[in-house]
């Protein structure tokens, strides 16, 4: 029976002590401890959040970089391609021009040669005519140097001429 009968003295001391301890612990231990834990939790939460944000930012930056790099690469390729095309075009044009020029030159040369040849032939003909005349003159002069020879010739010719 003694075991289950609360002693008034112990009830009194327990009540006084417990309420004092409750007050003191609440004021000087639980409040600061709980506040500090809460503060630390918030701090950790914030730190995690900002770390996450920073990581996202980094990822975004990296993606941007990649994009810029890719764009630059593409632009470089385009420029190179264009350059190559231009080069090809210039070469082709040059070739074409050279060919045309060469053809023109050949044609001009050919026509020059032709005209030279014609001129040369004409000049040769002239020379030949001159020479022939000179020879003929010389021959004639010799043939007709005396009266006899002239009359003989006249006779020959007259012989040939048959008066009908």
């Amino acid at each position: 029976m003694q075991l289950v009968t609360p002693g008034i003295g112990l009830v009194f001391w327990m009540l006084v002590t417990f309420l004092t301890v409750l007050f003191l612990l609440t004021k000087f231990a639980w409040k600061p401890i709980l506040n500090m834990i809460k503060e630390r939790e918030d701090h950790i939460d914030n730190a995690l959040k900002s770390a996450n944000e920073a990581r996202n930012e980094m990822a975004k930056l990296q993606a941007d970089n990649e994009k810029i790099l890719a764009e630059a690469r593409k632009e470089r390729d385009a420029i190179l391609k264009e350059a190559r095309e231009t080069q090809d075009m210039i070469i082709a044009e040059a070739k074409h021009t050279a060919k045309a020029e060469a053809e023109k030159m050949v044609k001009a040369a050919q026509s020059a040669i032709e005209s030279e040849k014609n001129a040369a032939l004409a000049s040769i003909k002239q020379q030949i005519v001159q020479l022939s005349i000179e020879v003929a003159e010389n021959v004639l002069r010799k043939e007709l140097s005396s009266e006899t020879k002239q009359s003989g010739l006249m006779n020959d010719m007259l012989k040939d001429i048959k008066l009908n």
Partner: protein
Amino acid sequence: MFTKGLGLLTALLFTLSVSAQHEHATVMHANDSTESHEQKFAPGPFIMDHIGDAYEWHILDQGDFHLSVPLPVIVYSQSSGLNVFMSSHFHHGHESYKGFSIAHDGDHKGKVVELVGDEEIVPLDLSITKNVVSLFVSVIILMWIFFSIAARYKANPKSSPKGLQSLLEPLIMFVRDDIAKASIGHHYMKFTPYLLTIFFFIFFNNLMGLIPIFPFGANLTGNIAVTMVLAVLTFLITTFVGNKAYWTHIINAPGVPWWLKFPVPLMPVVELMGVLTKPFVLMVRLFANITAGHIIALGFFSLIFIFGEINVGLGYGVSILSVAFTIFMTMLELLVALIQAYVFTLLSALYFGMAMEEHHEH
């Protein structure tokens, strides 16, 4: 496991064979002794003495030598007023002092009574008993630990916990998050200091009760006065924070047929009984669990002396088993110490939560 069992069995057989040789001598001694009745070991009073309260802190007996710490007796009665004296004046309960003495039998057995004329009256007894000293020791330890932790929190805010702090922080967080927040909900921060205090008070005192060395080992949380104060505080808080819905639910429970409330208020009576049963169960559960743990440990030790009286060797043999079982029980009690602190705190939190719950639908 098998070899262990075999070892124990061998030890037991060995002690039995040794005890057979001693039996003759013991019987002779028992016959010689005229005071055998007084010397006989009585486990009942032995256990009750240890789990109950006392006016002195008894440490050990060796023959006629009694080592105990005397504690102040504070009594007030209308006939003799306030009296404060050390319990050593009672000479371990054998003598009376200023008309006060410790009753040896009757309704007030073990209490200080005053002899006025021929009548035994019980004065108002506010003595610093063994349990009160244990209470003081426990709260000093409690405050010392938590004040030092609080100082560390203040000195190193936002840094990771160290030492004792890292041992107790998970428990503080557990009480805050898994007991207070989970059971009470929105207003949990208002109750967390109280819940933390009862949790650590009960837990520390349960653990201190398991240490059998002065100034520990008192059965404080296994004392009904202590558990009653704790339960009454929980009951008072529940009653004061109870909202309209809580009281409506008790007096005029919604969803219950009217003939259960009128003309015989059956449901209100049942509900009111429930309100009173809750703290009563809290009180009895903690008291019974902790007291039972102490009784079991003491019971095992009593076996040693019971068998030792039959035969000294047998006593030694049984002591091996008793110590083994007590170690096992102490391990269990370590668990019980935490579980009971948890259960008391959780149920208190649940009652607060119920008292503040808003009933929207039924």
